[in-house]
């Protein structure tokens, strides 16, 4: 019986999938496979196979290492902090109904502000003569050259959090409302404390939501490049020189070998990361249902 269903489904599935799969093949899969192939050649046109030479060169390049390190650092710090902050706010917003809808709208609105406007405001706030520095000056502190020092990373994280918190909050609120109330009631009867309930009920049942939020967070952490690019162009301060800057610059200098091998390295990292997340998710949600 199952076999029959499988076969019948397969035929239908082809029709449903065909348009997407075809476009996906042409615009994503083939480009990626080509990139993979180029990364093993010594030059894109009629190049000969050089094995891992490009990768060796890439890993020895200072600017790649810098870019990879920055991207890793930014993603591994900003994404968890933003998610933790959103979870905290969502837990708070879940308590009081008062003002909730207004706050929710206020938190989500940054998502619709165009990147270019964010950049404009950003300049005004974080310029050497900008407003934040004038506040610092007002408190008698010395001003900071935000975008041309190590602080740039912090500023970038703030902008990232500002943009993404609202979206995460909504996801978490939805997840929270989805946890059956009687779980908490039972726990109350058994005399469980607030912390115990948070750890054993709330966080456990939020795991699927968390998975989705982390994926979205990853995507948007790569998108922050747009803001950085618009404000600081091709070569921003060292601390915010990201992999995307590196790849963009390799493209502009026509160094396809470095560009494609950097791309492959990045995708392999993503693959490992997402597989790891899947494995973790499976382990945590095994006990559900």
């Amino acid at each position, binding site marked *: 019986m199952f076999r029959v269903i499988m076969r019948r489904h397969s035929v239908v599935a082809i029709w449903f999938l065909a348009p997407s799969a075809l476009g996906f093949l042409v615009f994503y899969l083939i480009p990626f496979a080509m990139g993979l192939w180029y990364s093993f050649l010594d030059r894109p046109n009629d190049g000969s196979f050089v094995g891992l030479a490009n990768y060796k060169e890439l890993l020895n390049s200072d600017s790649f290492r810098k870019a990879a390190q920055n991207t890793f650092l930014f993603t591994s710090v900003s994404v968890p902090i933003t998610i933790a902050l959103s979870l905290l706010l969502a837990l708070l917003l879940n308590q009081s109904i008062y003002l909730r809808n207004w706050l929710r709208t206020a938190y*989500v609105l940054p998502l619709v502000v165009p990147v270019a406007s964010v950049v404009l405001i950003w300049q005004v706030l974080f310029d050497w003569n900008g407003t934040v520095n004038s506040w610092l000056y007002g408190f008698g502190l010395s001003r900071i050259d935000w975008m041309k020092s190590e602080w740039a990373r912090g500023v970038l994280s703030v902008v990232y959090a500002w943009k993404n918190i609202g979206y995460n909050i909504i996801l978490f609120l939805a997840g929270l*409302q989805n946890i059956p109330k009687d779980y908490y009631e039972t726990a109350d009867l058994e005399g469980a404390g607030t912390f115990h309930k948070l750890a054993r009920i709330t966080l456990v049942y939020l795991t699927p939501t968390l998975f989705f939020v982390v994926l979205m967070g990853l995507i948007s952490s790569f998108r922050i490049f747009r803001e950085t690019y618009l404000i600081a162009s091709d070569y921003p301060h060292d601390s915010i020189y990201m992999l995307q800057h590196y790849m963009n610059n390799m493209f502009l200098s026509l160094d396809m070998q470095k560009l494609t091998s950097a791309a492959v390295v990045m995708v392999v990292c993503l693959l490992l990361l997402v597989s790891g997340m899947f494995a973790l998710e499976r382990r945590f949600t095994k006990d559900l249902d």
Partner: protein
Amino acid sequence: MLLPIIISFTNSLMTEQEIGSNYDLVGQMTNAATGGKDAFVNLKLIPDWVSFEQYNKVLLATPTYLNLFWNSVYMVAIIIAGQVAVGAFAAYAFAKLRFRGRDRMFFVYLIAMLMPFQVTLVPNYIIADKLGLLNSAGAIVLPGIFGAFGVFMLRQFMLSIPTAYVEAAYMDGAGHFRIFHQIIIPLIKPGIAALIVLLFVDYWNMVEQPLIFLEDDFKQPLSVYLSVVQQEARGVGYAASVFYMLPMVLLFLYAESYFIEGVQMSGIKG
């Protein structure tokens, strides 16, 4: 949270002179220039004089804006319509049909969705070249239509629809196309609304793709030009960004009830 929106709006109502005097210090290192005296940008929220001078420049005096605005509109509209349609079909297969290699294939989509645009930049460039799409909107619109995000998101929504519905309809003799069209699509309307908003936000802001695939300045979307304008004329920049933000805010307010319900649903079955 709302400060940037407020600043853009109130500053867009100031005259060029007022803006100029408020912000003429941006980008300068004034410590030396002012003889050691510290000076700051004047972040003013309330204009001295409400003026529509900037809007006049953006909307009437410079036809470029409207032209580029139109470029943005039609590219984004085609991408959204395409990705929603193509994505919904694929999502149905991934969520409600059983076939060999389904999960593995979906994993590939997931990775593609996470890849930054730069990863496939070179091959994409070559493919666009081979298909004769360079310097035309097609080079941006076609990859956009087949983006994996729509598939991913709509699949999430379809997963939250009980499979029993589908099976019951199937037992009653409805074909999969009919189930898709008459049961699934009406049920995931909130998801579609949410997807439209998110895609709009994303593509309305595109910068990298147009810069690389479009050579002619008059073919660029407004998002690219906006950053150029803001470097050159800050005053006009504010008005242009408000003008540019407007479709997004309107769409967002219109779709918000849908959208919030929609995003919530997608969170259910992470």
